[in-house]
């Protein structure tokens, strides 16, 4: 679907130093969207025909409100494109393609372990909401730079969910000092639950997702990870965004992050290909 999303809210998210933004857009996309899917957004009001920057930017759905016909995008100002996007004012209309790709699956029962690194937290929130509304137990493992980052990136909304949160920061300013993987290992060790009742979903830096996948493999926890790749078309037509997976026969195959993903089964991902 190609729609014009009207900017309803566009504000800084938390402390400005983290350059995080919250963008709420009005439009019909919410009706069919799923946690883990994304949109491809044009960073300039489409009434301007400027071709620099040229491409749309992929941003995950961080909030899906079909009652209000609203989607929320949370993003970090990164380079030129997101800088220009950050200037969009309330009332402007931004061209969005979406919802795109395949989102996370939800287990029928048991526990859902969410694992986030940095701004990888954003697409996990709607997933948590879906899981909770389905009656699943949810835990969040989340690692970030420091307390200020975690608070800026939405910690309080997570606290309101009343689920167990395992936080890590690089500097120890909040939660455990270190990496999110250590927290997961700790929990696995302490846990009474059989790992067969656990599903995991991870989003964050590739290295983190790879490490978490490794852990999950060892304890036979199925895990889904959300990959990122530079995109051209965002619909599977240009083969710009491929990643390498191992198929059932053990052969390396290419999948398109935009169309076949961005969510894939962690065990299938070939991490060491530059993907």
């Amino acid at each position, binding site marked *: 679907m190609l729609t014009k999303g009207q900017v309803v809210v566009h504000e800084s998210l938390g402390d400005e130093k983290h350059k995080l933004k919250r963008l709420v857009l009005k439009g019909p996309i919410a009706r069919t969207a799923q946690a883990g899917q994304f949109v491809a957004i044009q960073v300039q009001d489409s009434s301007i025909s400027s*071709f620099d920057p040229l491409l749309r930017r992929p941003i995950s759905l961080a909030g899906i409100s079909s009652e209000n016909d609203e989607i929320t995008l949370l993003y970090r100002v990164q380079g030129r494109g997101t800088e220009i996007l950050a200037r969009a004012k309330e009332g402007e209309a931004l061209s969005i393609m979406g919802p795109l790709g395949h989102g996370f699956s939800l287990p029928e029962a048991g526990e859902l372990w969410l694992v986030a690194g940095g701004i990888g937290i954003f697409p996990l929130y709607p997933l948590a909401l879906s899981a909770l509304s389905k009656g699943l137990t949810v835990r969040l493992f989340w690692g970030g730079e420091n307390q200020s980052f975690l608070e800026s990136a939405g910690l309080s909304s997570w606290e309101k969910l009343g689920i167990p949160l395992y936080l890590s920061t690089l500097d120890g300013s909040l939660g455990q000092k270190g990496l999110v993987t250590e927290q997961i290992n700790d929990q696995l060790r302490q846990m009474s639950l059989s790992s067969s009742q656990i599903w995991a979903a991870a989003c964050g830096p590739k290295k983190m997702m790879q490490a978490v996948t490794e852990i999950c493999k060892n304890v036979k926890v199925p895990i889904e990870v959300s990959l990122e790749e*530079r*995109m051209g*078309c965002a619909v599977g037509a*240009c083969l710009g965004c*491929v990643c390498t997976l191992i198929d059932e026969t053990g052969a390396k195959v290419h999948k398109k992050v935009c169309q076949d993903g961005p969510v894939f089964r962690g065990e299938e991902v070939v991490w060491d290909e530059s*993907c």
Partner: protein
Amino acid sequence: MNPVNLSTQFAGITLRNPLITCSGTYGFGEEYTSYCPLEALGGITLKGITPLPRLGNPVPRLAETPAGLLNAVGLENPGLDEFIQSYLPKIRKLPTAAIANISGFSLEDYVQLARALQKDSGLAALEVNISCPNVKHGGMHFGTDPQSAQEVIAAVKAETDLPVIAKLSPNVTDIVGMARAVQLGGADAISLINTLLGMHIDIYQQRPVLANTFGGLSGPAIRPVAVRMVWQVFQAVDLPIIGMGGITTWQDAVEFMLAGATAISIGTGNFVNPQAPLEILQGIKEYCEERGLASVRDLVGLAHHDR
């Protein structure tokens, strides 16, 4: 006022309108259907295929540049057999003309592909992508040497009963010489242009952004070069031209037709605006209406006339 006649016919190809999509940017036709119904298009050009399946280059395969896009997909494709078995049956059913795009790394590759794709395949034409290195001749590109280009086209022409479109590379000193060569080879039409060779360096990582180092530059940035080549070839060679390179708005499309393109093809523009083909078609129609032109074909080469 009579409606503008949008249909166009050239080189034995009949299209309901002059709007095509570019090879490599429109998959095998099914990816964009929820944005742009195929019924609206004159035709689509399929992703380039080779005799054997190819995994293509590692990622990153894309880099954005000012008003442009670098790609180094590396001809990832399922290969000829899989194309015929799994893709062709679906392609035959598409509600628009489908042009296959064939690539090779030796003359034999092209011959093999051409032999397998005949009129009974349901395809409308073969577009021959000659912007590939000839591995048997030290990697010299077919598309930069007039003689190799002529040979490839002649070989393809001898093998297939489909109309043959030669797709030229812009990375040459003399595009007219290349066009003449493929005309001698028997090409029925010419596609202009493929991508310009470029690269982009990540200054923080201090290495090329693309895993392949080099990539092909497409998008609005290259439009002035593409229009120039269409203009030059139109003046020198009597073959229909499919114009492409940066077409994103209807004004761009009209510019290519005025320069001499009989049909026009949209590539990177689809990424920017997946409804670009619809808007372009509408724009061309209105442009003709406002000028009282009975047919889109009346636009072709109009800017060459002295006034």
